[in-house]
């Protein structure tokens, strides 16, 4: 456990350093895109945003501020600190992400079990083909398609925006579908292997219904590959939400992330990356612990 925490800190340190140097060592400063400013003013600006002095001093200064929980000021959205921006946008991204996460896991598990319960049938191969199609469809194609059908043609759901429950539905479906398909395929493959084992035959011979056999007995064993996919899933959802937020005009952290790259807004960029990584590491720790718990129960 302690070793895990130590390695998390090391990874976080690497993440911070890599981001910092990638941004600071690229040619062009954050104030280059605007009209020419006098040298004296630029010097003051650089001093205000702590971008003056040798690069190593800047780096250690940044690390020091981070340790105090200060993610510094954004160079684009003047006078707003990165902490402020993240406090506003992160809850939005996290809500969308968690909704999509739940949806992907539940839909994926159900669909995978549905396909695996019909071995060798046409339904099974159709279901698997469907999952392949939805993995191959980028979310920026799926999103506009769903908008076209459900918002414009049927007028059931809003086109975009944020705040109501209705506005959450389409974005989370768009974000979840490809990953639900990945989970469905994972579960299908491992269920197919599990369903031929002896304890399943025992369960069947006890006269249990197929539903109880699959959900009560087989799923406990077959779910392990899915559990170890949850960590990568969370990372992919955070990445994917950048696109989905753009499509549905959601004021989340993803849009700020893309803009901060284009605007060379280093500290905002760094802030988003650091917070994302911390969240993912905590999540991975939880997944790891629950995996061990599940694994132990099976072994005993």
């Amino acid at each position: 456990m302690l070793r895990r925490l130590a390695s998390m800190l090391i990874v976080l340190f690497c993440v911070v350093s890599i981001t910092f140097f990638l941004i600071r060592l690229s040619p062009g400063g954050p104030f280059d895109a605007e009209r020419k400013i006098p040298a004296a003013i630029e010097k003051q600006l650089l001093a205000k945003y702590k971008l003056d002095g040798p690069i190593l001093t800047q780096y250690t200064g940044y690390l020091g501020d981070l340790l105090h929980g200060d993610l510094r000021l954004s160079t684009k959205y003047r006078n707003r600190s990165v902490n402020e921006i993240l406090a506003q946008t992160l809850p939005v991204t996290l809500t969308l992400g968690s909704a999509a996460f739940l949806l992907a896991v539940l839909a994926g598990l159900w669909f995978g079990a549905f396909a695996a319960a019909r071995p060798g049938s046409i339904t099974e191969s159709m279901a698997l083909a469907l999952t392949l199609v939805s993995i191959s469809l980028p979310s920026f194609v799926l999103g506009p398609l769903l908008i076209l059908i459900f918002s414009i043609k049927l007028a059931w759901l809003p086109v975009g925006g944020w705040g109501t429950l209705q506005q959450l539905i389409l974005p989370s479906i768009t974000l979840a579908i490809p990953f639900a398909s990945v989970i469905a395929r994972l579960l299908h493959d491992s269920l197919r292997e599990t369903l031929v084992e002896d304890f399943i035959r025992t369960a069947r011979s006890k006269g249990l219904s197929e539903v109880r056999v699959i959900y009560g007995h087989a799923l406990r064993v077959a779910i392990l590959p899915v559990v170890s996919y949850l960590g990568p899933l969370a990372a992919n959802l955070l990445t994917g939400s950048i696109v989905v937020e753009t499509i549905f005009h959601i004021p989340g952290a993803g849009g700020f992330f893309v803009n901060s790259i284009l605007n060379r807004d280093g500290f905002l960029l760094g802030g988003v990356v650091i917070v994302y990584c911390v969240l993912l590491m905590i999540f991975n720790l939880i997944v790891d612990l629950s995996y061990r718990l599940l694994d132990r129960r099976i072994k005993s």
Partner: protein
Amino acid sequence: MSLYLPKKSRLPFLALSVMVLTVILGPFLFPPSYALPGAMTYAPPSLAHLCGTDLNGRDLLLRILEGGRISLLVGICGAAISLLIGTSYGLVAGSARTGIDQGMMRVVDILYSVPRLIFILIFINSFNERLQLTASAHGWDWLVGSSRLVILILSLGIIEWLTMARIVRGQTLMLRERSYVAAARVLGEGYWTILWRHLLPNLAGIVLVYLTLAIPSVIIDEAFLSFLGLGVQAPQSSWGSLLSEGATSINPLRGAWWLLLFPSLALLTTLLALYNLGDALRRSIGAKGN
């Protein structure tokens, strides 16, 4: 290795070959005016323009074929780079001492759960200008125009090697226990010779299978980057950038559905063919999924 293809992989292989040939040869069949901006903007599909025209009046079919060249190029080169990195990493990890092996695989686990594409976005942006500056300073004209593409291919290769490393490492662990490896060791062959002469040739099959499965992920990643405006940029286009153009032109005022439909079909066919080919090959050599 013979050119025998397992039964289920023949159709996807055929579809893929047709796609590659059309993409390479197809653009030569069009009159030159089709590539230029024309008066007929947003024309729906017709006999003259089978897939319609885009917002500048260019022929969409021609753009799809040209975009396919870029998408496939990025996919194949990116996957090849990931193969190179993943195979060497997996091979070294699988044949090293347990401690080193576990450390190396722990790194892979960590990288799996880090938003890699996000780092790549930063990487692309900061290195692109640097490369462009270097290229123009040295007078490498070919590189100035396509520096973004080169960076894109490199960086996608850098992030997609993890699965390959896992597979190769698992296979190496299995192969190193075989008697012919022990025999080679008894005969006094060195570590690198054993890797190169005995382990690598036996990994070729599984590596090729996972190459077919890595290409679609690279193509999807490229589409993602291009959609955000950080991938392939005009005047070049890829399926991803065509799709993002199409996605923005779906609105209540103008239903230019063909701009979304035809690039999606091209992308979908290619990806499905690649997935099915990889899947069929994987089953035929009896390998399990990861």
